[in-house]
């Protein structure tokens, strides 16, 4: 297949991008421009976003997205499809409609670069947790961008000097789900009245351009690129400046330590059942005396670390079978079929007794779990699966006996290209 571009008119560095794979998280105002830029640079692009386009997005997203034809389509899938004709020969673009909670560290580690174009701090903090769980030598470069009024910013880091969390004020995370940008909350209060901080499509596109430039500079190996923040200030104080962010004191993100060793499980979380995982782990550890910790997810200030087997209907109080991970269970999911049919809502005012929740999975776990796939049990694609060996310890007070080994499914990163929706 012949390239659609004339190589004589393109950058001499273009061949360096051919093998690069970039993951873009968020495919809206900034993400769609970033995807277009990276595709035109000659790299492969993968996009993730759970949201879909609405008509009001047209003022900000890249011109590759068509209006009104693309209204209602999943942003990630749509942008990936629209940039496909722009790709260099041999490159791919793929979009996945998914929440970031569905991704694990190993999927992120399989990319050369990640551009984070999300508009809320909860997602940024979650991404940082995943990123810092990757062993340092396998961490991709990360670029986080955003806007504030007409200002645009982009930060590039390799996770060695500081983490993304160092760039976030902890106060911004109190309401982490609120829409924000890289430089502060997108709502400000003047004399007790809240107002939305407006930003233009131009600022968003400049943020994406800054990210693309930082990626380009990192790939060609330019000096003093890594761990820098580039800020564009619009007229009347027009300026383009570069600064070096500092690590934050007592940063909880920097405190996260990646596992020392990660062992492999054959297959992916989509096809390996709990029973198969237990067999593979027992072969690897040469013992059957272990337990698999249920996936723990800290998102929007809540820790989800259990798998709900049974609970009571949160509308009528009748016992129900749930079989879902806590992090994937909403209050409305805790209703019996009768209440769903009668459209009764789950009650928030009643303190129901806790259901039957598993925190670890073993051969002795409920037999219904054995045939469930790891993804159904709550492990995200590319998860680090924690296996605890007690080695005869009476409990966790026998600290010296307990060992933890981390496993991951080898096919997870590849499987990411086979899905369009993760839910």
């Amino acid at each position: 297949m012949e390239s659609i571009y004339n190589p004589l008119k393109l950058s001499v560095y273009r061949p360096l991008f051919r093998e690069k794979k970039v993951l873009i998280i968020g495919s809206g105002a900034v993400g769609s421009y970033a995807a277009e830029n990276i595709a035109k640079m000659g790299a492969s692009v993968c996009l993730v976003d759970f949201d879909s386009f609405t008509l009001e997005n047209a003022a900000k997203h890249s011109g590759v997205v068509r209006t009104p034809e693309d209204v209602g389509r999943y942003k990630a899938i749509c942008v990936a499809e629209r940039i496909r004709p722009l790709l260099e020969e041999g490159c791919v673009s793929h979009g996945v409609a998914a929440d970031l909670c569905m991704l694990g560290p190993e999927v992120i580690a399989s990319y050369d670069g990640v551009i984070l174009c999300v508009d809320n701090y909860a997602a940024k903090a979650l991404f940082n947790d995943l990123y810092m769980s990757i062993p340092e030598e396998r961490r991709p470069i990360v670029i986080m961008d955003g806007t504030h009024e007409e200002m645009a910013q982009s930060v590039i880091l390799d996770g060695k000097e500081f983490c993304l969390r160092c760039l976030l004020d902890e106060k911004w995370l109190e309401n982490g789900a609120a829409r924000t940008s890289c430089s502060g909350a997108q709502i400000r209060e003047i004399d007790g009245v809240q107002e939305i901080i407006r930003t233009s499509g131009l600022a968003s596109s400049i943020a994406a351009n800054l990210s693309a430039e930082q990626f380009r500079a990192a790939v060609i190996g330019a000096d003093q690129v890594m761990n820098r923040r580039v800020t564009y200030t619009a007229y009347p104080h027009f300026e383009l400046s570069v600064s070096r962010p500092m690590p934050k004191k007592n940063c909880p993100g920097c405190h996260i330590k990646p596992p020392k060793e990660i062992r492999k499980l054959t297959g992916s979380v989509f096809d390996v059942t709990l029973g198969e995982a237990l067999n593979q782990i027992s072969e690897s550890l040469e013992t059957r005396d272990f337990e698999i910790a249920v996936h723990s997810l800290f998102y929007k200030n809540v820790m989800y670390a259990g798998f709900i087997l049974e609970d009571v209907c949160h509308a009528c109080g009748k016992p129900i079978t749930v079989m879902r991970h806590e992090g994937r269970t909403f209050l409305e999911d805790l209703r019996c079929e009768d209440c769903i049919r009668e459209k009764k809502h789950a009650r928030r005012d009643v303190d129901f007794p806790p259901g039957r929740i598993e925190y670890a999975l073993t051969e002795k776990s409920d037999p219904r779990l054995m045939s469930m796939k790891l993804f159904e049990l709550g492990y995200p694609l590319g998860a680090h699966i924690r296996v605890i060996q007690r080695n005869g310890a009476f409990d966790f007070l026998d600290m010296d006996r307990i060992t933890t080994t981390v496993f991951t499914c080898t096919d997870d990163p590849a499987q990411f290209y086979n899905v369009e929706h993760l839910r």
Partner: protein
Amino acid sequence: MSYTANYTDEHGNTTTVSISEEESREALRNDYEALIKIYNPRYVRIERKRAQEGEALHLAITVKAPSHYLIDNNDKTPKACQSMTAEIIAFPGYPLMSVRAFYAPDHYLASPNVFRSGGACIDRWVVFTSSLLTVAEKLIMDMIHNPVVTRYDSMANPTLEEWHKAGVARGEFPTIRPQLLYAPAVPLPERRQRTVKTPPPLPRRRT
């Protein structure tokens, strides 16, 4: 691997805290060691049970004092007994992860704060405020029906609210003096004898 949770200080400032697995285990050990020193073994027995899969620590706390129990989820008539046992399970990730507390479903404490399934209502878990110690204290005081810790607005078993209030009004609750449950204060170590002789006093100035 680390565990993360939000911590809100006394000024209302919230920060996220991450702890490693080792730090979690150390916190558990520290709290357990503190717990076993607080109570008088004559009245409160704290016993370690073998932790099952997914559990970090499993404790059984028995209070040897008059109490009342129910036998199933339809039972509404509290029956007297001379001791009561509650169990506490701490999970990996403690103290950022909450603990679970419960009674045997066929012999559970008659209290407005105990669900009919036997689960104990231990209030919201507040990171770095709630701990094994605060939960054990609540359970132990509940077992002697000390009204100081009873939440009458709990949804757990409101049918026992009147019964509990009547017991308090009659002066029957708490069933023993709560002070008896605590370990007697450890006396300070004896003062060492002086090893250096005090020099003789200086002669007084003549007036």
